[in-house]
């Protein structure tokens, strides 16, 4: 298999698009908790939590700069333990992406294409991702390169356009109900930091793996800024009550804007940006999933797995949720936070523990070096 390499810059772009797409999709800081006008504070809290998550995931990844999480977890925890954890991660790749494409398809059917069946929208997006993945991770990275400017432009344009309807009164009073609601709203966005799991698969393909953490942190920071800015703007334009009770607050905000008599519908920009983000999101997650399965099953090339995986994925995204209410329930802090912690943070804590024990026991770096030289 030829070794594909992506630049760290491309990792930043991909992570940025993956993370920001959540923001423009459902803006979970506003819709999941009770923070309301203080949601921007929750955004800051969740940014900090995401950075911690990156340290947790990326920190281990750079200890093994030539292996994916699927390889070293079995080394650290033994065959059985490692494989079980790997299945956890595979599930996350599948489920997160399936959920996100479902949200996107729901929006399209509600807002634009009411007569189009959901499965058609889902499968065409998955098809795009499958094509991109079969061409390789380099191609995904290059499309991210090509899309990043228009993506940023679309988001910036809709945010700037919204300034016209901005009202500071909506953001007051600050912290009137204490820090409790702020944290309740930060739980789901923080748990969504598990999207950074892709680091476990992407780091070995990087040109400079040891700089993975700064790159991921930069992406988190940038998308955090987008998150904070859009939270403030959405609350400022829509008001806390409407904002937190709507399904797609960002979309609703752009829909409410009328910049001038001629330019009045800019929500198409948001939907396009969303589509671009979803595409990158799906491609990266499908790539990670396919790589994972191929490494678990010891198949040299992951490409033959893409087709079956894509079909499985479409089914998953259609049948996991009955309707949109199900999706909303899934993202409730008391469901999503424990779910994500169990399935991401706990396994990683285990991996870290195993790593530290072995590190201490066998004289640290020597162990890794020895294992690396040994051919598989």
């Amino acid at each position, binding site marked *: 298999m030829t070794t594909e390499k992506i630049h760290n810059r*491309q990792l930043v772009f991909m992570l940025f698009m993956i993370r920001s797409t959540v923001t423009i999709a459902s803006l979970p800081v506003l819709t999941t908790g009770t923070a309301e006008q203080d949601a921007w504070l929750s955004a800051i809290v969740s940014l900090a939590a995401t950075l911690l998550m990156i340290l947790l995931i990326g920190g281990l990844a750079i200890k093994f700069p030539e292996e994916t999480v699927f390889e070293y977890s079995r080394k650290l925890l033994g065959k059985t333990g490692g494989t079980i954890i790997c299945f956890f991660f595979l599930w996350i790749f599948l489920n997160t992406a399936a959920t996100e494409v479902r949200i996107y398809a729901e929006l399209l059917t509600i807002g634009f*294409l009411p007569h*189009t069946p959901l499965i058609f*929208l889902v499968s*065409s997006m998955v098809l795009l991702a499958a094509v*991109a993945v079969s061409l390789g991770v380099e191609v995904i990275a290059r499309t991210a*390169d090509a899309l990043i400017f228009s993506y940023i432009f679309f988001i910036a344009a809709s945010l700037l356009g919204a300034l016209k309807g901005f009202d500071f009164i909506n953001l007051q009073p600050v912290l009137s109900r204490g820090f409790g609601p702020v944290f309740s709203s930060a739980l789901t966005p923080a748990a969504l930091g598990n999207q950074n799991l892709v680091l476990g698969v992407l780091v070995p393909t990087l040109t400079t793996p040891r700089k993975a953490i700064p790159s991921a942190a930069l992406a988190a920071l940038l998308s955090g800024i987008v998150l904070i800015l859009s939270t403030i703007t959405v609350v400022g334009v829509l008001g806390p009550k409407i904002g937190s009770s709507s399904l797609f607050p960002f979309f609703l905000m752009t829909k409410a804007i009328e910049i001038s008599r001629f330019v009045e519908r800019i929500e*198409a920009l948001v939907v*396009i940006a969303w589509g*671009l983000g979803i595409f990158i999101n799906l491609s990266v997650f499908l790539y990670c999933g396919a790589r994972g399965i191929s490494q678990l099953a010891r198949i040299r090339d992951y490409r033959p797995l893409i087709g079956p995986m894509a079909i499985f994925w479409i089914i998953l995204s259609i049948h996991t949720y009955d309707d949109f209410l199900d999706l909303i329930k899934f993202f409730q802090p008391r469901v999503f936070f424990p779910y994500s912690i169990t399935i991401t943070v706990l396994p990683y804590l285990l991996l870290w523990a195993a790593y530290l024990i072995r590190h201490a026991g066998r004289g640290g770096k020597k162990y890794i070096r020895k294992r690396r030289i040994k051919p598989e």
Partner: protein
Amino acid sequence: MKWLTALLRGKKSHTAQKKKAEAGKITDSRMDISQREAAVKSLSLKKSLPETLKLIREVTGAPGDLTIREFRAGREQVEIALLHLEGFVDNKLVENILRMLGLGSFQSPVGKGAGPNLLQEFRRRLLQSAETKEVATVDELWSALTNGCTVILCHGSATGLACDTWGFKYRNIEEPSAESTIRGPRDGFIESFYTNVALLRKRIKTPNLWLEEFTLGSLSRTKVGILYIKGLASEELVQEVRQRVSRIKTDAIMGSGYIEDFIEDNPFSIFPLLFQTERPDRVAGCLLEGRVAVITDNTSFVLVAPMDFPMLLQAPDDYYEKMFIGSFLRLLRYFAFGISIFLPGIYVAVIVFHNELLQAQLLLRIAAVKEGVPFPVVAEVFLMEILFELLREAGIRLPRAIGPAISIVGALVLGDAAIRAGLVSPPVVIIVSLTAIASFTVPTFSFGIAARLLRFIFIFLGGAFGLFGIQFGGLLVLIYMSSVRSFGYPYLAPVAPLILKSFKDLAFRAWWWRMNTRPLLLGAREPVRQPRGQQPRPDIEEEEKEKTGKGRKNDH
């Protein structure tokens, strides 16, 4: 059974015939072309002049354009023949040779039958000025003739002397009609190989501009050359081009399009993967960026490899105009390119699916004029686009004199009448003509065609799936384009992979004094083009003088 045996026998006799023909002489008309070619290769010239001439007549079928002049010359009155092909030679030069040979003014020391020495004598004494070469076989003799040589044959010598008398008439060097500029140079490539090379050498005079020649096509024997700046173009790239070009095995190369098909990376790409142009200044610019040019004889199009996407939207004028104007024009072109691909599709999508995206008044206006049009909007746009393509194609194929007639038919009869008859709504005509105009701003014709093909797909996607379909198609094209490579270089560079350093020549063109580095991927061998800090400013010496007060002019 009888017919079967007959058939077998017939087949057998046929193979027997072939075998016989292989052994037979060149006069055998049953020989196939490849056998003839092989036979001619083995034929060498004879010592006796009449025999040689007979042989040549047999091989070539004694065509009318092969002129053979026989005469005796020198003190010994040796039999001499002068051969050339009409149209290939400059008659004055041939006259010159003839006069020198015929005058017999040279002191030949040779006796009868000493042909080789006589030829050497000719070579040394008489023909110093012309380029000469010895030919020993019929094949060599013929290729010398087709290269515009005059061949001198001498009785008693088994070799001939080919003197260069090239005088083929080409058209003049003119501005290429498909790529005209306002401020650029007005010369374009023509159908002559060496003239084209000279046009490039005139621009890049370093001896490090290297030319490698190949002869391709077993029958056409076309000259193909690859041209690059040694030490600037990466060796792997040159090697790759050399290998792909020399691998071509075919009977004839009629133009650079043949070569393009043979050597491009991905035969299923609808985008051109090699850049072709008729402008020497563009090729020279590419060579100076470390690219490789492939020049083909008999065509005015030169190929450049590798190509990247932004090259397609760069017009030569961008570099000759002032920076701001050039950048504006280029931005405009990018915009027009977007229109030419997406506009009809988006129009269809908006009208069919997303009426709410239009402003209310605009929507009402469109709905009002669309009232009574019998076709769905997809069909309408599709029809008009096809119509436009027909007009464009007809415009190219037409004899020049009928051109205006077609434009009248196209504009008045089809456009105006279709609207009046209520078959097509005016907005569709506006959209289609806007698209057409936009598509002609693409400076590379072959890419304009690719854009047109895509446009039809987008009309379909927009009509069936709305903006979602257009986004789907756009992403698919983007994925495809970022996976394609041209001679190993990513097609979408410097956008994907992102190379910010090369952005100085992407949508904007930087000032020339800012273009300090060559494009990164290509000029990796020596990225620095010029020293930094050449921004025009008041002369430094003057500044210093002013500081010290020396040389300051007296005001009174």
